[in-house]
């Protein structure tokens, strides 16, 4: 089920009620674990067994890998490599097997006769990308000694399957999540209040801003790029840039809010990304749990920035290419990742050439605008169904559209621009701050009004649900 559904309201109310009624902490954790499996089974019950099996195997392997005296170092390392490979193999089979076969067939056909490969079309288990990364983080952390593997199976199961973050993140880390399970906890009044407010805000971002206002023009323009004028192309691209932000940030906000209601803290996943100055800044603000995972478990193990500019550039490119591929088995995601990798490399080179230069307000705004422009160009590849669509739109963005008659209605353009400009203004205003700080400063009656506006809007338009975009990743 999804957060913006009435079924979730019923499910969440029941979980909250049971959580408040059960006095025993271990029993409450079991209830939360069962709720996670029920939440997952609501999509496809058969795959709950895959989740349970993967949890069991990873927990057992982590106990061996994470106990230094238990096995010789070489054996522990081999088991770690085997465990990580197993996790990645499952991910690759379900997510990338057809993409791989398709590309092998294309390569084969270049050198000789056509190779017909029937797609295996395995049904992608929901959340597999997120669960795999969390399992790998646990295995590596216990191997490195960053986390002791003495967690109970229930705690580890909950780390993987805690329903607020289960299907689309934020990707949790062992040291952020598991210590919270050691002591009995119940949400305080403040946590419950914050949780309900964040759930409301997340739903509003998803239902009203992403699905209601931004998704239709984005789909319209990306669906028929050859009919888009330059204005249409810009509106469509901006609409998608903010649709994906409100969709995914909305989901993360809901997840953080739902977890708060149960007394658990999940780390922030977004911090005003469209106010970023530079691409490295962007990745410190966008999908923070993924970018920090890639940094800690891919970029740094590859060598990070320790071995000179050339190898750093290679590491950045590899990290971003794989980060792109993580989003989906298609070349457009690889190109999107590659583009970001390239922009990060360029930024790094400029920094090393120019040194630490401090910019005035105008310079910072200009750099912010350039960053935003680069990010938007990246979104064209991310959203476009194929390269032809992407290049048609890029051409239109550059001022050479394939059409002259406007595709989008004036009302739609106005709505998109209103959301875009007001969001940019808020993000720049709060770029050095946090949402929580802004809420704490606001008078209570304005928050009450805001809650009411969001609830009324969601009540009027919510319900005919659209799935969160990041579920597919």
């Amino acid at each position: 089920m999804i957060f913006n559904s009435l079924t979730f309201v019923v499910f969440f109310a029941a979980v909250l009620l049971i959580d408040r009624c059960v006095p025993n902490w271990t029993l409450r954790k079991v209830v939360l674990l069962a709720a996670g499996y029920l939440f997952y089974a609501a999509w496809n019950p058969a795959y709950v067994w895959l989740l349970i099996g993967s949890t069991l195997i990873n927990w057992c392997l982590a106990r061996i890998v994470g106990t230094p005296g238990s096995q010789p170092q070489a054996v522990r390392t081999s088991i770690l490599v085997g465990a990580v490979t197993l996790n990645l193999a499952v991910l690759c089979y379900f997510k990338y097997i057809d993409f791989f076969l398709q590309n092998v067939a294309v390569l084969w056909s270049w050198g000789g006769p056509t190779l017909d490969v029937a797609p295996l079309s395995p049904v992608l288990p929901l959340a597999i990308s997120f669960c795999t990364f969390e399992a790998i983080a646990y295995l590596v952390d216990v191997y490195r000694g960053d986390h002791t593997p003495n967690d109970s199976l229930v705690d580890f199961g909950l780390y993987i399957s805690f329903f607020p973050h289960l299907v689309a993140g934020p990707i949790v880390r062992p040291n952020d999540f598991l210590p919270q399970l050691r002591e009995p906890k119940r949400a305080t009044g403040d946590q419950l209040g914050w949780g309900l407010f964040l759930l409301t805000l997340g739903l509003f971002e998803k239902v009203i801003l992403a699905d209601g206002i931004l998704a239709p023009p984005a789909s319209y323009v990306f669906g028929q790029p050859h009919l888009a004028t330059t204005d249409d192309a810009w509106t469509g691209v901006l609409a998608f840039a903010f649709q994906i932000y409100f969709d995914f940030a909305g989901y993360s906000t809901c997840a953080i809010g739902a977890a708060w209601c149960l007394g658990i803290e999940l780390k922030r996943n977004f911090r005003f990304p469209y106010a970023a100055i530079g691409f490295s800044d962007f990745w410190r603000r966008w999908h923070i749990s993924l970018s920090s995972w890639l940094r800690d478990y891919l970029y740094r193990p590859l060598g990070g920035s320790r071995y000179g500019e050339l190898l750093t550039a290679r590491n950045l490119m590899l990290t971003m290419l794989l980060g792109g591929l993580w989003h989906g088995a298609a070349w457009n995601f690889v190109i999107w990742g590659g583009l970001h990798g390239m922009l990060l490399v360029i930024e790094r080179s400029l920094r090393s050439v120019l040194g630490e230069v401090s910019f005035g307000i105008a310079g910072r705004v200009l750099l912010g605008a350039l960053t935003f422009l680069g990010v938007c160009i990246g979104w064209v590849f991310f959203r476009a169904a194929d390269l032809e669509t992407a290049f048609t739109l890029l051409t239109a963005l550059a001022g050479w559209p394939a059409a002259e008659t406007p595709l989008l209605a004036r009302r739609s353009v106005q709505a998109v621009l209103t959301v875009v400009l007001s969001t940019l203004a808020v993000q720049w205003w709060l770029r050095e701050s946090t949402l929580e700080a802004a809420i704490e400063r606001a008078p209570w009656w304005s928050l009450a009004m805001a809650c009411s506006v969001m609830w009324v809007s969601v009540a009027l338009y919510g319900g005919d649900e659209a799935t969160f975009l990041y579920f597919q990743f």
Partner: protein
Amino acid sequence: MPRHVAWSKTLAVGLALTIGVLGLMEWQFRLAGFGPSVHDGADLWWANYRQIAASDEPPIVIAGSSRAQLGIDPATLRRGLDDRPVIQLAINGSSPLLIIEQLADDRLFHGTLLLEIQPIVFDARPAGDATPAAILAQRQTAVWRPCETAVRTSVQSLLVFRNPLWEPKLYPRLLRPATWHGLFYLQTAPDRSIKADYGTDRDLDKEDRWARILETMQPMNAEELARLTDRISRAAHQIQSRGGQVAMIYFPGSGATLSAEERFFPRAAYWDRLVRESGLPHLHLHDVPAVQAVYRPCDGSHLDGKQTRPFSEVLAAAVKDLLRSEL
């Protein structure tokens, strides 16, 4: 952990305001005579489709487009057809071709299919198949979706302000009840029947609009019509081989729409030929005197909600006679 905010007061006042605003809207809408309506999407279509498997006795299934969906009252038709379950699967602005093929492939279906025929069926462009194809592709695999559809439909069928016709662009009208004329002129029930209220939304241009839409269609040539007939016949025979029945019913338009229909899709060239070559039981509503007295499309294409019960009573009797004569 963020710092303290007076959440109890904030959320309580926010909730009170929300209930106040929504309550006021609900009251005002009901005062204006509007009723609740549910969202007629793929989920609801599949929820109705699943009733085929759940029916104890062979159901009557309606496939077609808006003329059947707005014209037939399922409860009245059910009473007129010996209390057999009636399942509304007609899809607005579409051809029933993909639906009859879906039912033909569904071994659980061995009921009676009433196939609404109107000009869109004879349109050579594939536009008429787009919505059914999208709906068929959205067959729910997630276990929770039927549950969500049931809960959502129940809520929507209680509250007028959840009307799916409600759009942001209508906000300016919200504060001026005098402009609510025709705000929600369509009312969809959980059984997917739609009641239109042309009394509050009598748009005189509508009749011309349907006629203009007919002008944009591309009438099938003889070869295309033969292929269509073949596909319908094959699907119908599959259903018949399981003990089911298929009857085709032509729902004609009126006024300018009917003139356009006769011009672009002459009866002899299309309907009569489909009937002759498919050999299926059939009914043209103009041929049944009792029906003609109650079948008067208001906007050139659809019946008003007030007409659906008397029309469905007469239609039930006509269908009963038709099917009895075929057995």
